[in-house]
C-alpha cells in the first residue's frame, strides 16, 4: 500500500474511533473508562496522518509541482522513514485496517445479546465463601427495590440473611430463550471489552413468556422464588414476575 493511501486509511480509522467514542456506540464494545483513551488514540491517528500528508505536500512543492506520489521517495532521500520502504515492497498489512473501519461505519455491530448468553458455559456467581454469607448490607427500604441482575443473582445464591425473600425487585435486562423454550432475563457482564463478556440471568416465571422475544429489553418487577438458585442449576434463580413491560435498550447494555 502506498504512503498516501496509508494516510487515508489512518484518517478513516482515527475517524471511526472518534465517531464511536463521541456518539456513545463504543459502550457496545468496551467499558466506559476507555472513552478518553479512544478519543486520544483517534486524535493521535489523525495528527500522525495530517503530519505525514502535510510533509508530503511540502516536499512535493519543493520538488517543483511533482505529484505527491513522489513524496515517499523524497523522504527516502532524506533518510526519514520506517523500515519497509527500503525493501521496495510496500507493506500489505495496512489493507486489513479497512476491516474494522468498514465494520464500524457500515455494519456497526450491535451489543452482545441472547446468542452470547446461550453460547456461554454456566458460570456460578463469585464469592462462594460461606463465612461471608451474612456480610451483605441490608436492602434499601421501599416497595420495589431496583437492582442490578448481578447483585440479584449473587444474593440469591449466597445471601445468608435471605434479604430477598418476599421483597419485590425491579430488574432491567434482555430476554433470552434457551433451546428448550424457557425464558430468562439476562445481562452480560464485561470487565474490559465484549470479548470477555459473561452472562448473569434469572429464569422468568409467573407470566406468559411465550410473547417474549430474544433480545427484547424489558423491565421486570417480581420476587425471588426462595431457594431456586441451587448448585444443580448453576445458581440461576427463578423470578416470579408480576409486571413485565418493554423498555428501550439502555445506552450502556452491560453490567460491570
Amino acid at each position, binding site marked *: *500500500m502506498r504512503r498516501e493511501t496509508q494516510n487515508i486509511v489512518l484518517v478513516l480509522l482515527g475517524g471511526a474511533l472518534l465517531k464511536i467514542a463521541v456518539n456513545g456506540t*463504543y459502550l457496545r464494545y*468496551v467499558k466506559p473508562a476507555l472513552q478518553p483513551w479512544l478519543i486520544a488514540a483517534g486524535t493521535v491517528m489523525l495528527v500522525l496522518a495530517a503530519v505525514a500528508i502535510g510533509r508530503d505536500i511540502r516536499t512535493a512543492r519543493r520538488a517543483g509541482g511533482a505529484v505527491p506520489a513522489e513524496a515517499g521517495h523524497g523522504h527516502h532521500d532524506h533518510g526519514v522513514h520506517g523500515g519497509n520502504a527500503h525493501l*521496495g515492497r510496500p507493506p500489505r498489512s495496512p489493507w486489513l*485496517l479497512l476491516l474494522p473501519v468498514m465494520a464500524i461505519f457500515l455494519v456497526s*455491530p*450491535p451489543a452482545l445479546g441472547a446468542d452470547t448468553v446461550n453460547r456461554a*458455559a454456566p458460570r456460578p456467581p463469585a464469592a462462594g465463601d460461606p463465612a461471608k454469607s451474612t456480610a451483605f448490607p441490608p436492602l434499601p427500604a421501599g416497595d420495589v427495590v431496583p437492582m442490578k441482575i448481578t447483585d440479584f443473582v449473587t444474593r440469591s445464591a449466597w445471601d445468608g440473611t435471605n434479604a430477598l425473600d418476599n421483597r419485590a425487585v425491579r430488574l432491567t435486562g434482555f430476554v433470552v430463550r434457551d433451546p428448550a423454550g424457557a425464558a430468562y432475563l439476562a445481562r452480560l457482564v464485561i470487565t474490559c471489552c465484549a470479548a470477555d463478556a459473561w452472562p448473569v440471568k434469572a429464569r422468568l416465571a409467573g407470566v406468559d413468556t411465550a410473547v417474549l422475544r430474544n433480545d427484547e429489553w424489558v423491565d421486570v418487577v417480581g420476587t425471588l422464588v426462595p431457594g431456586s438458585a441451587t448448585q444443580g442449576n448453576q445458581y440461576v434463580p427463578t423470578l416470579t414476575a408480576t409486571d413485565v413491560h418493554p423498555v428501550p435498550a439502555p445506552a450502556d447494555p452491560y453490567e460491570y
Partner: protein
Amino acid sequence: MRRPAGTRRRSAGGLAARTGTIDAVTTATRAQPSRVRRRITSLEVLCALLVLALALQGWLNRVLDVPALRTGSTVFVAVCVQAMPFLVLGVLVSGAIAAFMPAAVLRRVLPRRTALAVPVAGAAGVALPGCECASVPVARRLMQQGVPPAVAVAFLLAAPAVNPIVLVATAVAFPGRPEMVLARFVGSLATAVVTGWLWARLGRPEWIAERALRRLPATEGGSRWAVFAETARHDLVESGGYLVIGGLTAAVLNVLVPSGWLAAVGGQAALGVLVMALLAVVLALCSEADAFVAASLGALPLLPRLVFLVVGPAVDVKLIALHAGTFGRSFAVRFAPLVFVVAVGCALAAGLVFLS
C-alpha cells in the same frame, strides 16, 4: 510496483547518480511491465473498495444478520477497539526510542553481557503500562537500535505481564489472595527471563526478518520530531493490520470454541492446566482483563488459573499474528511454541512455590 515507477521518475529528475548502476539495470528490466500496471495505484483500489462497500452495505447487513455472525462481528470490533489505544501508546514509545534514544545511549544503559542484560530488560518491562500489543513495536524498535534480540524478547514478554496496572487488576480480581499477585509477577518475569536466556543460547539471527533488524540511519538533530512522527505512523499502519488478523482469529474462536470445555475439566489438575493454557492462547484476552476472567472460573483450583494468567500475555493468537508480521514468520513459528512451554513451566513452578 511503486519503486520502479518512482525510480524511473527520479532518474528523469537527474537524481539517479546516487542509486548506482545496479539499480539502474533493475529499473530498466522492471520498468516494462510496470508501465502497464502503473495506472492502478492502491489509492484507486481503496476508492473502489469504499464505493463497493457503500453500495453493498444493505446486502452486507443482511448477510451478517445471523446470530453467530453478529456475535462474531461484535467481538471482532471489540477486540480491535479495545487494543487500538494501547497499540497507539506502543508506537509512540517506539517512535520516541527511534528519535530520541540513539543506539549509543541504549548500549550504555544495558549491561554489555547479554546474560545480564536479559533480566534488566525484563525488569524494565514494569515501566510500560499497557496491553501486550503495545510492547511489540517497542521490542522491534529496540532490536533496530542494536539491542540483542534475546534482550528485546525479554522486554517483549515482561512488559504486558508485570506492569503495575496488570498487577493491580490481578489484586482487585483476587481479593484477599495477595499470593496470586506475587505468583503471577514471579511466573511472568521468570517466563521473560528464561525465554530471553534460551533465545540468547539457541536463537539465530536469520530467524528474524531482516526488515525488523535494519538499523535506522543516523539523523541530524533538527528532524528528530519528523523521525518520531514518521516512525510512529509507519509502525501504526503496519502493526495495526496484524492486530486486525488477531482480532478476527479471536472473534472466530470466541464463537466456535465450546466454552463447555471448562465445565468438563473441573478438578482434574493436569488436564485443567493444559486446557487453561490452551484457552489463554485462543481467547486472546487483554492482560488487564484476564485476571477477572480467571477469577470468575471458581470451579477450578488456583494453579490452572495462574497458568492462564501467565500464558495469556506471553502468547496468544493475536500476538502470534503480530509477531509473524513484525518479526517474520520463521520467528513466530519458533517463538510461540517455545514461549508456551516456558510459560507453562514457569507458572507451575511459581504456583508450587507461592500457592501451596
